[in-house]
Each structure stands twice: as C-alpha cells, then as structure tokens.
C-alpha cells in the first residue's frame, strides 16, 4: 500500500480544476474549492428549500432545518447568554460550514477541506480575531485585564501575565489542529483499512477481506459521529471564547 499513488494520504492531495493566477499569486480553483462551493450551495439549499412551505407543523426537512437553527441558538444561549445571540449568524455559518465540510468529505471520492491545516487555521484565526475585536469593542482597553488573573499577588504577575497571554494565543492553534488532526486521522484510517481489504483479500482468496471491511463499516459510522462532534466542538469553543470576550473574567 506504500506503493506510489495508493498512499492513504493521496486523498488529501489538492488538484487544480481551473488554473487562476492573479498578479503571480496562484489562486486556482481546486478540488478543495469545489467542495467549499458545494457545501455553500448545499447549506443554502437545505435551509431555504426546507422552510419554503413555512408549514406550521414541520415536515422532515423543515424539522431538520429548525433543529439546526435551535441547536446553535441554544448553544449560544447556554455558553454565552442572550448577548451572544447578536453573533448568531456568524456562529451558525461557522457550524454549518465545518459540519458540511466534514460530512461531504465522507462521500467517496470527494475531498475534505476541513482536513487541511490551512483551512482550519484560517477559520481559527478568523474566530480569534473576531472574538478579540468584539472584546476590545465592548470593553476598550479594559479588555486586556483579561490577561491579569484576579487574586494573584503582584509578585507573581510577571509570571502569570505571559502565561495567560500564551494560553490565549494557543487557543486558535488548538482549535485549528484539533479539527485538522481529527479529520485527517479518521480519513487516513479508513483508507488504511480499505487498503487492507484489497491486499489481504487478494492474498487469501477474499477471506481476509472480511475483517477490515467490517472495520471500515464501523469506522464510517464512527466518522459520521466525529464529523458532527468536531463541528460541535469547534462551535462550542468559539462560543466559550466569545463568552470570555463579552464577560471577561
């Protein structure tokens, strides 16, 4: 399976679909971009078509759309409070974009844009920038008191403040790496077991393929869970950071 072209990591390779260059910079439309566009179209279609009938008693699709709406709404209410609802559209977009990226990546032969560190890091940086901007806009200079823990002796402050700042700055790093690593690990594992199906199956007249195939079925279910869970974790952490920015300590 280490044979060139059949590496479990091959699925993460980016292929250009349309070559685009702006001022020497390569901004080609790639398979990653295709999936992003599909995700955007799918999310908009899901949310608009399902509530098109505006039924008082919702059907299946409308229930699903309302469920996602209230799920994110409750997440914000629980973790940030009513003041957080102002940022509902952004949090909702974030949740849906990550969730659909994770889910669409599970379709065979598609591509998982959330398995790329560039994408997750950009999303995490956007989150931390927006959250910090909200904090500074709400509290002004007082926002930086966030880095000064309460009840700590003044002698300790030269040590504590850098630690707080580092812990704050490591938030986007952990946010980005958690999503990227989870998606990449899951997809790699599925590919590895899929490789076992071929190699073990060929060596044992198909008998050896049963166990890795069963494993892959189980992994597919597990990856569906991970797809939801990581989207949820990404969003919930965003809410917690937002909560810190709005309420400070």
């Amino acid at each position, binding site marked *: 399976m280490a044979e060139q072209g059949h590496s479990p*990591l*091959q699925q*993460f*390779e*980016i292929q250009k679909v349309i070559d*685009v260059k702006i001022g020497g*910079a*390569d*901004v*080609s*439309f*790639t398979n*990653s*971009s295709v999936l*992003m*566009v599909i*995700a*955007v179209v799918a*999310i*908009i279609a899901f*949310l*608009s078509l399902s*509530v098109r009938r*505006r*039924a*008082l008693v*919702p059907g299946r699709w*409308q229930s699903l*759309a*309302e469920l996602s*709406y*209230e799920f994110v709404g409750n997440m914000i209410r629980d973790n940030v409070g009513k003041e957080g609802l102002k940022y*509902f*559209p*952004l949090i*909702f*977009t974030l949740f*849906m*974009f990550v969730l659909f990226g994770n889910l669409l990546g599970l379709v065979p032969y598609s591509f998982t*844009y959330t*398995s*790329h*560190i*560039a*994408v997750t890091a*950009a*999303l995490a940086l*956007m989150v931390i920038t927006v959250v910090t901007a909200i904090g500074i806009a709400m509290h002004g200079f007082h926002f930086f008191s966030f880095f000064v823990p309460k009840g700590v002796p003044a002698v300790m402050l030269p040590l504590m403040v850098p630690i707080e700042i580092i812990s704050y700055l490591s938030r986007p790093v952990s946010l980005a790496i958690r999503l*990227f690593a989870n998606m*990449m690990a899951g997809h790699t594992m599925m590919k590895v077991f899929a490789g076992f199906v071929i190699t073990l199956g060929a060596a044992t007249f198909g008998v050896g393929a049963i166990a890795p195939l069963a494993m892959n079925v189980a992994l597919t279910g597990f990856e569906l869970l991970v797809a939801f869970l990581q989207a949820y974790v990404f969003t919930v952490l965003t809410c917690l950071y937002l909560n810190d920015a709005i309420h400070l300590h």
Partner: protein
Amino acid sequence: MPQLNPEFFLTQIVWLAITFTVLYLILWRVALPRVAEVLETRQDKIDDDLEKAARLKAEAETALATYEKTLSDARSEAQSALREAVAELANEAAKRNAELTERLNREVKAGEDRIAAAKKQAVGSIASIAADAATRATERLVGRAPDAKAVETAVAASLKSGEK
C-alpha cells in the same frame, strides 16, 4: 503530507474567504431570517392558542360559578319558601287547635251546665213528685188527704236522710 505543501495555502485561504463570506451573507440576510420567521409564527400561534384556551377556561369557570350561584339561590329560595309554608301551616294548625279547644271547652261547659240544670230541676221535682205520691198514697190508705204542709216536711226529711 499534502497538507503541509505551501503551494496551495493561498488558494485554499482565498477560496475559503470567498465561500465563507458568501455563505455568511446569504445566511445572515436571507436564509436565517426565514427560519426565524417560521419559528416565530409557530410560537405566536402557540401563544395565541394558549391565550384562547385560557380565555375559554375563564369563561367556562364564570359560567360554572353563575350556574352554581343560580342553583344555590334557587335552593335557598326553595328552603325559605318551605320554611315559610311550614311555619304558616303550624300557625294555622295552632290557631285551629286553639279554636277547637275553646269550642270544645265551651260545649263541655254548656253540657255540664245543662246537666246541672237538669239535675237541679230533677231534684226539685222529686220532692213534689214524692209529696204528690205520698199524698195520693195516704189518701188511698186513710181516705183523706193529709195536710200538705206535713207531707212536704216529711218528704224533705226523708230526702235529706236518703241523701246521706
């Protein structure tokens, strides 16, 4: 690891920025308000129905209270009418009873008076009848009529001793 190939960092971030911004704007301006509207309409409808139900309940309770009040009024009216009737009847009965008693007393008295008069008359006539009988008997025995005065005295004396 293809993820660490910096060749495609820029394009990914650019397309992420484009698609994410488009998605954000459309969700914020178009899609989410529609979902919110549907949810709000339902909430309004539910609130409306609850309010209506509460109003109907209050109405039903008022009607029940009115009914119960009417019922208890009627019952107390009936009771007072009954009590009045009973009192009236008792009064009437007592009056009639008193009248009857008086009449009977009067009649008893009249009867007693009559009896006493008759007795008196009878007792009075006994003396004369006895005197008459004595006179006649004496006349038959002796042949001549005795002195009326003596007969009377003798009869009175014998009557007196007979009474003893």
